[in-house]
């Protein structure tokens, strides 16, 4: 199984842990990931809030490189995934956008590169059976709240990922790893995304509600698949404690980190030391179950 792989800018900075654990898990499961040479930023929220053509042309710069490689493009960051999907949709359905993107990038591109989230590859191509067979450890009944956030599942007609109101992709992986996937109401609530710096007050309110709900549902940790969700839910717990006096102490792990642990991969290859809220309890539980 060979794919083009778009790490996204945060993979080189605040989400090195997501990137490292993705590479480790992919290698362990026989998934070959090749970065398109010279990949560039998808533009993120700042791009689409600024200009429609910029928002389509920036992802197109990388999509063109993936088209040349002739492979499906795998993205693990939910936000990049969303921007790539939206750009493809806009270019494929709107002639004017396609022409403007061609003008901006210097290359005509038809929006045809298949963009897939890593979760889709794990569930559809690798498959639950193969993953289960490769496991060396277990979550041993640990209660995990799967958090999908916004950009994986919305808008449904563009991302086509799972169910927009009650997705279960992460839950299926948690169950396969021997965990208890919690039924809880905040799976697709918003963490505040890109407003983390500009409107920290808004983000603190939103993340407090999400982490608090996970705690109320009995979660021992939260599983995510987006660097914005991860840093907001993890790091902002320090602000929640400071401003609101509530100490949630809720570890927020990437699904690839949980999977890596259960695959028996060394913790240092999974970037676990980068989490702000210590995942020691989670690591200990998996190691004890092995």
């Amino acid at each position: 199984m060979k794919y083009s792989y778009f790490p996204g800018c945060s993979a080189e900075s605040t989400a090195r842990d997501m990137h490292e654990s993705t590479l480790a898990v992919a290698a362990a499961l026989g998934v070959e990931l090749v970065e398109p040479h010279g990949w560039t930023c998808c533009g993120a929220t700042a791009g689409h809030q600024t200009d429609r053509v910029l928002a389509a042309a920036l992802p197109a710069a990388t999509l063109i490189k993936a088209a040349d490689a002739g492979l499906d493009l795998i993205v693990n960051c939910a936000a990049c995934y969303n921007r790539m999907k939206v750009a493809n949709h806009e270019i494929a359905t709107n002639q004017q956008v396609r022409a403007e993107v061609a003008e901006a990038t210097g290359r005509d591109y038809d929006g045809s590169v298949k963009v897939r989230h890593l979760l889709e590859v794990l569930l559809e191509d690798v498959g639950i059976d193969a993953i289960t067979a490769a496991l060396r450890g277990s979550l041993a009944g640990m209660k995990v709240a799967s958090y999908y956030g916004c950009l994986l599942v919305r808008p449904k007609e563009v991302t086509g990922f799972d169910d927009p109101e009650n997705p279960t992709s992460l839950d299926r992986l948690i169950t396969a790893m021997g965990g208890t996937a919690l039924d809880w109401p905040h799976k697709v609530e918003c963490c505040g995304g890109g407003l983390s710096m500009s409107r920290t007050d808004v983000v603190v309110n939103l993340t407090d509600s999400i982490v608090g709900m996970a705690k109320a549902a009995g979660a021992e940790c939260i599983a995510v698949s987006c660097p914005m969700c991860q840093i907001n839910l993890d790091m902002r717990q320090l602000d929640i404690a400071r401003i609101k006096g509530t100490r949630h102490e809720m570890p927020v792990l990437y699904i690839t980190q949980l999977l890596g642990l259960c695959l028996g991969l060394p913790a240092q290859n999974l970037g676990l030391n980068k989490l702000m809220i210590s995942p020691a309890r989670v690591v200990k539980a998996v190691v004890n179950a092995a």
Partner: protein
Amino acid sequence: MVRVRLCLLNIELSELDMTITISKNKSARSIAQRVREITGVDLSVCYQCRKCTSGCPVSAMAKCPPSEMMRRLHLDMGEELLDSDILWMCVSCETCSTRCPMGIDVAAVMDALRKIAMERGAVKGEGNVPLFNKAFLKTVEVFGRTYDLAMIAAYKLGSRKLMADTEKFPTMLTKRKIALLPPTGADRKMVRRIFKKTKENKAADK
């Protein structure tokens, strides 16, 4: 009918002030018209069911929730529409677009309104999101990828939020949670070309 519903919801009539005061458009190209041009959205199909507002994560914190924004557009409100706080509080989560029974891409309408607000120099709201976006995109234009440290520095200086989050920096540095050096390896040439063309389009638009 209205009275029955209000009793059920236990709302005092005085609390339920649904009056919207608008001033008419002064410019030749109305804001609603411009939104239609940018997005291709048919604003007239909105029937004010308020599903967008019910699902909006920031509607409880905003003075003007998304459904009211849609109504203001219906009524062809003038420039002060661009001062609505929701514009820069909106987190682009797309819940409104996903849940709209008429399939209106409300999130795209918000993007269009932000673009118009920037063009017409409207107020930037608390937190100065346009400055954040500018700082973010500037690093992309220069390096081809985001460079967090430069972006954070530019935003902090511009917004005078110098002390915010500084207490987390030592931990982030020890954990190497943030890159110190600028990114390398991106196809900067293509990215610069994209920014150049976008700026040319913007100039032509005016």
